[in-house]
């Protein structure tokens, strides 16, 4: 298992290299440049800016320089935020988004699995239909609808919770964004869990477990739950990476200084180095979390481990 994980990490290096290369050239293909939005910019000043940020050299040379700096752990200066570098911007935004995203995933995982398990055990009853109807709604309604509704109700109407702002991650401030983010996750995980539970309840070995005279809860806990978790694990890998790197909708609606908003703004501003920095973070997270998911897979099912 260890050697397997190490091999996967070694493969991650060329993967990241390819991602950086493709992204570097792709964003340069997009029309416009980082300084186009500055009003009344003198052409000579623009030339100076380009020189200062190394943008006047041939593209391939810029690419070489970027890789050299990257190898030294330097993500470069931001092109849109004067006097800030990308590493600073990410280290400010990422903790906010990560805290929010991870909390939302944890909440979503707990309630999602709970709903899915209950629905599967009460298959084709009113309980099952109610849970699945709610879950279907949860999947169907986008967060840009639920988030304003939540603020409207709990923030404005009831006045229980603040409308927006981060306030250093104070509990009251993160409740609404976490709920808004968690709702579709709960719905998604509930549906996946129900399906895989029903499948694993049908397995012959579950009948064997019952024939052994085990009480139903032991049958579920020991013989049904583990394989039922597997599709959830593979869903979680990319879901966690996505949640940690922020949601532009939630961060904008609740006015949160997260990395998701920075990413979209960076793209609009043609802030090349910021975009690349965030892409690298996101890609690394995806690779690591998928690796983790595979390791957990191996733990859940020894057959996977032997291959």
């Amino acid at each position, binding site marked *: 298992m260890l050697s397997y994980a190490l091999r996967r990490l070694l493969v991650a290096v060329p993967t990241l290299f390819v991602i950086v290369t493709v992204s570097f050239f792709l964003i340069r293909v997009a029309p416009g440049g980082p300084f186009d939005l500055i009003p009344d910019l003198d052409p000579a000043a623009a030339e100076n800016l380009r020189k200062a940020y190394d943008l006047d050299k041939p593209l391939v040379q810029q690419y070489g320089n970027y890789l050299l700096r990257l190898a030294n752990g330097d993500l470069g200066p931001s092109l849109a935020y004067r006097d800030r570098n990308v590493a600073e911007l990410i280290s400010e935004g990422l903790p906010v988004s990560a805290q929010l995203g991870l909390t939302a995933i944890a909440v979503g995982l707990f309630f999602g699995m709970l709903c899915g398990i209950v629905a599967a055990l009460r298959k084709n009853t009113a309980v099952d239909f109610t849970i699945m109807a709610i879950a279907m709604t949860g999947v169907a309604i986008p967060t840009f609808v639920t988030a304003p509704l939540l603020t409207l109700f709990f923030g404005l109407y009831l006045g229980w919770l603040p409308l927006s702002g981060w306030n250093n991650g104070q509990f009251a401030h993160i409740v609404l964004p976490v709920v808004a983010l968690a709702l579709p996750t709960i719905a998604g995980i509930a549906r996946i869990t129900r399906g895989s539970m029903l499948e694993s309840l049908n397995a012959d*070995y579950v009948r*064997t477990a019952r*024939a052994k*005279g*085990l009480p*139903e809860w*032991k049958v579920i806990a020991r013989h049904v739950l583990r394989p039922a978790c597997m599709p959830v694990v593979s869903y979680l890998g990319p879901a966690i990476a996505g949640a940690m790197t922020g949601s532009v909708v939630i961060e904008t609606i609740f006015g949160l200084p997260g990395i998701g908003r920075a990413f979209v703004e960076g793209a609009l501003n043609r802030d090349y180095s910021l975009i690349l920095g965030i892409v690298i973070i996101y890609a690394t997270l995806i690779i690591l979390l998928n690796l983790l998911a595979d390791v957990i897979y191996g733990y*859940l*099912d020894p*057959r996977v481990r032997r291959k």
Partner: protein
Amino acid sequence: MSTPLLACEDLRVRFQTHAGTVDAVNGVGFEIHAGDCVGIVGESGSGKTQTAMALVGLLADNAVASGSVRFRQEEILNAPAERLNRIRGRRVSMVFQDPMASLTPFMRIGAQLCEVLRQHSGMTREEAKARALEVLDIVQIPEPRRRFGMYPPELSGGQRQRVMIAQALLCEPDLLIADEPTTALDLTIQAQILDFFRSLKKRTTIVIITHDLGVVAGLCDRVLVMQAGCIVERGTIEAIFNASKHPYTRTLLAALPRQDTRPQEPPQGLSSETGAGSDALLRVDDLKVHFPTRVQDGLRSRTVPLRAVDGVSFRVAEGETVGIVGESGCGKSTLSRAVLQLIGSTGGRIVWQGEDLSGLSRKAMNERRRDLSVVFQDPLSSLNPRMTIGSIIAEPLRRFHREMSRKDRDAAVLNALRDVGLDREHRDRYPHEFSGGQCQRVSIARAMILKPRLLICDEPVSSLDVSTRRQTIELLKDLQEKHGVSIIFISHDLSVVRIVCDRVLVMYLGHFVEIADRNALFESPSHPYTQALISAIPVPDLAAQRQAERIILSGELPSPTAPPSGCVFRTRCPIATDLCGEQEPEFRTLDNGARVACHHA
């Protein structure tokens, strides 16, 4: 008579399905007394398994059971799970058919055994482990301590079934119900397990559910025969086998080929040397099919060839039926696919009508397929579910007779349907609307429509019920007589091979060990493996069961990635000597014409 251990009265099981209700069991009643060994016999759909499931409250959610089941005079039918759980696993335990699917794959063997003991006997962890190891030893699992920490997929089929039986014996139950306990196993492994069941009769009361009267013959004292949810006949084993009264029982008995009687028709007078001339239809010389497999060797992995077929030679003459028999993993299916060029070969030659097939281009090979046809094992999954029966049968005509008019093609399809005993109305239906036997008839019609010169049948009747099996074999023989096609008949079932084949090739671990004329093979098998295979056939005949001296092979098939040196069979051979490990035996021709690869035969 003493009070019965288990009494079942007017048991009925009904399933609620989307298509309405289905009555699976229609008023079944019987008694099981302590010390009995009872067989419940019937074909698929007879309700035998549902009866067993109803006894222990394991029916599916959509089933409704009524009647009465009393265990030690306590009513347990439809009892709440808490009450059943005091009996299940402790007083009554179950062994299921497929040990691969019936053991939890992600739990260690030890944990699965210990949870039964911890549940029912309140043993400590250490006590439970000691008892589990003791029972693993009783069921003759090699190295129980090592197996204790392994997962079910790491064990072979036979060992998994032993674990399953160990699990059932842990609490020394009063009653053991075994549902098709040997059906998923190979012949020699089945013989091992049945032998073990015979020794179990002293320990506990046993109910065996099976479709195979041969299994019952050597084991049970009493038999219940089920058909369509009812018990149609019951009696002592002697009464059932020697003086059965019900026509269905007699059909079951007749459908089973008897090993001790000669088939009626004599073989076509072909000796084992047939096909030796250069005019053989098919000649296979030293064929090898190796699959590269990766094995983990510390941190690095390396590629090792899996020798599925490792140097076999044989010939098939015009109009001849050649049987290839062997247990699963012996390479017989790989061999058939290589002959058809559906997989590439690693070495050797396949000469078809004087032409080496392995050198042909894909296009040229496809032209040859007109005369080379195949019927696969699972009839339903080898027919395209989205095509009608008619278009499935017509497809080869569309490929090879493009000039044929629609009218002629339709006529040909109707002819083919009639030849295999299906109606013209069947033409526009889809495979899922047919039974396994009917689907196999469609497969045969499709395979025969171009009048091929060679038909390869890969386990064509293994997935069919015994009575359908007989009809399908008759059909194949009729078609052969009519069209003079040569047949390669692959099967693990020697009793079927005995009816169909003129000549039999016995395969073990990628090698042929014996090639003989049918009668020579069955009357005087020469190779020790052939002898063991023939003795392992559960014969539906009491006298034969009792007289026959069983040869029960120890151990299991070695890995084809690391075959034994010298003779591949020596690790399980009862007469192996040092010579067998040093030198690979050459084929020798014996007095009765059989050719055998053994130093000592």
